[in-house]
């Protein structure tokens, strides 16, 4: 099931023949310029944001109408060709990695905002509309779209639906699932289908729950109706310094225990702070072992009251320095470092691998200590940014991809973090998705029966397993091999778990 991703077919001539056959079928339903099949044209599509994995598809298609999307799906279905839908290609787990025997379906042309309804507080947008563009279009009405992944300037709403994307504000405002009302799209057979509704629920099963976050494996999304919410009149942010990471972790729990749900609650460790300060010059406290960004939004009175309460809690939790943003410019400056954590990391290391596990908040200090030990074990450095409020870790492992051994150690380091997170009661991915990157770790989090149930869910939508096959759910065989591999290395994380 996960095997054919990068494996070559029997020989090159077979591949060429298959490509010719598929391109001929696509040519009957699409204009010539909407089909890319020469290597120089398909190269830009060979990976997504996870650049360590690359593959060349048989063809890339760029339909311009929904009728064309349906026709492409029908043509591919008739030939049993895998289809990998793609938005902006910013995903960090390889969810849009092409299938060597498949067609990459780019939805880049679907970039129109269909309607903003300020009375209903909804926006109807095509799937290729960028996340930030929705909020920009809603701004004149005092509204915005809440989920704000760091890549929001580039990532598309279709991709957000596929990944159930979060962002720094999802502690208070929820993930994509809670902010999307309706998804229109097509089944693998090319049949039009609508999930959810313009109301707050729909008849029958709530299929949005599995569609959102399904990484393009259940249906192809073409249009999304999102919920817009009133922009709070004011937002202010506290930047709090802590002398040790454990105290910062405990402060996060203390804020929640005080009955406060901050609009954002983020943690950066010392090395991360140093890297971003160099990049954005936001006057971060470079002496702090960790800093917390803790935001309040609402009316002026509400924010004043909450900032006061949060400051008290942070102070009693041992904050060594507390600074509250004076104005919007300073608030954005506080956030600029957090939002630029990835590019700033790119400046201090040739490559980095961003992990994305979630743990119970109370285990924050435990996991940080474990990561520190792993740095020594794998001889690689790691910098940390966390969506601390919801326990979502983003350790960035620094390495040089030109050094095969470093890449290998980086992969082991990453898997170790994910499996440690599962052991601490968490999950292998909080918001970036499984894609191809975390397939092995899924073997650790789920039993064979659980994985088989997920395959059965996929087949309920896609009986021949043609939509983005090989992603998200590892096959029994793959898990068996992974189990053997890790046993051989003496690293099997849960020897007592029934596995096969």
């Amino acid at each position, binding site marked *: 099931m996960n095997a054919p991703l990068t494996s070559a077919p029997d020989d090159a001539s077979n591949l060429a023949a298959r490509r010719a056959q598929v391109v001929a079928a696509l040519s009957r339903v699409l204009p010539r310029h909407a089909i890319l099949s020469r290597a120089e044209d398909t190269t830009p599509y060979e990976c997504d944001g996870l650049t360590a994995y690359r593959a060349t598809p048989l063809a890339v298609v760029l339909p311009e109408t929904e009728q064309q999307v349906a026709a492409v799906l029908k043509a591919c279905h008739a030939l049993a060709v895998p289809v990998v839908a793609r938005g902006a290609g910013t995903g960090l787990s390889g969810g849009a990695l092409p299938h060597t025997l498949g067609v990459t379906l780019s939805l880049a042309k679907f970039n129109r905002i269909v309607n903003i*309804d300020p*009375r*209903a*507080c909804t926006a109807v947008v095509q799937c290729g509309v960028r996340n930030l563009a929705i909020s920009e279009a809603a701004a004149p*009405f005092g509204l915005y779209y809440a989920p704000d992944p760091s890549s929001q300037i580039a990532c598309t709403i279709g991709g957000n639906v596929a990944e159930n994307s979060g962002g720094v504000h*999802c*502690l208070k405002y929820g993930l994509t*699932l*809670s902010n999307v009302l309706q998804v229109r799209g097509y089944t693998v057979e090319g049949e*039009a*289908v*609508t*999930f959810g*509704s*313009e*109301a*707050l*629920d729909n*008849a*029958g*099963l*709530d*299929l949005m*729950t*599995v569609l*959102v*976050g399904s990484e393009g494996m*259940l249906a192809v999304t073409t249009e999304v109706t999102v919920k817009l919410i*009133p922009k709070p009149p004011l937002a202010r942010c506290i930047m709090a310094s802590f002398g040790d990471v454990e105290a910062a972790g405990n402060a996060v*729990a203390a804020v*929640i*225990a005080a*009955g*406060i*749900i901050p609009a954002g609650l983020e943690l950066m460790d010392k090395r991360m702070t140093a890297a971003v300060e160099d990049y954005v010059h936001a006057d971060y406290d470079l002496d702090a072992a960790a800093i917390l960004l803790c935001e309040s939004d*609402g*009316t002026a*009175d*509400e924010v004043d*009251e909450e900032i006061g309460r949060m400051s008290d809690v942070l102070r009693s939790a041992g904050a060594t320095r507390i600074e509250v943003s004076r104005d919007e410019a300073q608030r954005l400056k506080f956030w600029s470092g957090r939002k630029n954590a990835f590019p700033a990391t790119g400046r201090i290391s040739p490559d980095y691998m961003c992990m994305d596990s*979630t743990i*119970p*908040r*109370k285990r924050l200090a435990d996991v940080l200590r474990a990561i520190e030990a792993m740095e020594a074990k794998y001889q690689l450095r790691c910098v940390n940014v966390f969506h601390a409020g919801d*326990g*979502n870790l983003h350790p960035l492992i620094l390495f040089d991809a030109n050094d095969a051994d470093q890449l290998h150690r980086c992969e082991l380091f990453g898997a170790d973090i994910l499996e440690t997170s599962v052991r601490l*009661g968490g*999950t292998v*991915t*909080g918001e970036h998705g*499984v894609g191809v990157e975390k397939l092995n770790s*899924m073997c650790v*989090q789920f039993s064979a*029966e*659980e994985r088989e*149930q997920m395959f*059965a869910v996929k*087949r309920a939508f896609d009986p021949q397993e043609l939509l983005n096959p090989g992603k*998200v759910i590892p096959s029994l065989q793959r898990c068996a091999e992974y189990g053997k591999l890790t046993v051989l290395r003496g690293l099997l994380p849960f020897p007592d778990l*029934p596995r096969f």
Partner: protein
Amino acid sequence: MNTAASTTDPALRRLIDQVCTAREMRTSLDIRGGGTKAFYGGVPRGEPLELQSLSGISSHEPTELVVTVRAGTPLVELEAALGEHGQCLAFEPPRFGGDGQAGRGTVGGMVAAGLAGPSRASAGAVRDHVLGATVLNGRGELLTFGGQVMKNVAGYDVSRLMAGSMGVLGVLCEVSLKVLPLPVAQMTFEHEVDAAQALAWLSAHRALPLPVTASSWFDGRLRVRLAGARAAVKSAGQQLAGRAIDANEAAAWWRNVRDHREAFFVFEESALASGESLWRLSLPATAAAVHPSGQQFIEWGGALRWLRTSADAAAVRAAAAKAGGHATLFRGADRSAGAMAPLPAPLMRIHRELKAAFDPAGVFNPGRLYADL
């Protein structure tokens, strides 16, 4: 929880055995918590699978905002435990059943029915608060999806699919729910307006940053609840004209709306016998007032319209569809034509396939959601 083969929990063991027997004997099971929602959906049939012995809070970590609870736990018991820590289920699930029965509804039944209360439009649905679940499928396998953390996109979110599934996919055994702090301050005010004016008022205020957490319109009175931080409630209260309602009266009102103890929702046998039904219309909030015949009760900022009417099902469903939503026969004497709104063919096909994927022998709750599921 452990996997099915290795579980030693007697309550769980009994459930697994009963499911395996039913599958082998080709009989069906009627999954029962407190039995307070037997009126809802298709008429229950099959041998009862009692969940009440699978009870108790497995863990509650107030600072994690998470509670993990076994499915047979009474909802009121869970809410009382959360209340001790100043926390709540923000979506205000209804607690059905008249006097003496109201304490019986279970957490599993709450999730399976997927019904949220007055705060739905602001707080989200049941599914938005489900973080994980352990489910017994029709093959007798005990499966855990999701987890105890806020953010989790590992694999398909099967735990949330259980919310509103009416038990047709599997038996919920344990569920982890997101909990939230109780609001510090609340205030309810009232306007005397007709239904159209109420809908216009709600639409005019929807895009404003106000801490509105519930609204209702019935019999010429629009009531709006504000809740949240003290300062936020106070400033919004000053901004919005309207008569403030006494705090105790307001609390009783929202509780009775939530639990369907308000007179509008109460159905005596005589009302049912006379052919009167209660319909639940889920519509876009901005939809114009629908269906003039019968009495109407509006919630969720206009997105939920209850109709108490003798009109025939086809007329009610057509009106809901025309308004962009769907209608559910919530309480009625005759459920033979199906309580849930029919689905378009591609969705119905996916429903059948999903049913087969979880419960290939068709053991669980036949007909509760759709006749052929």
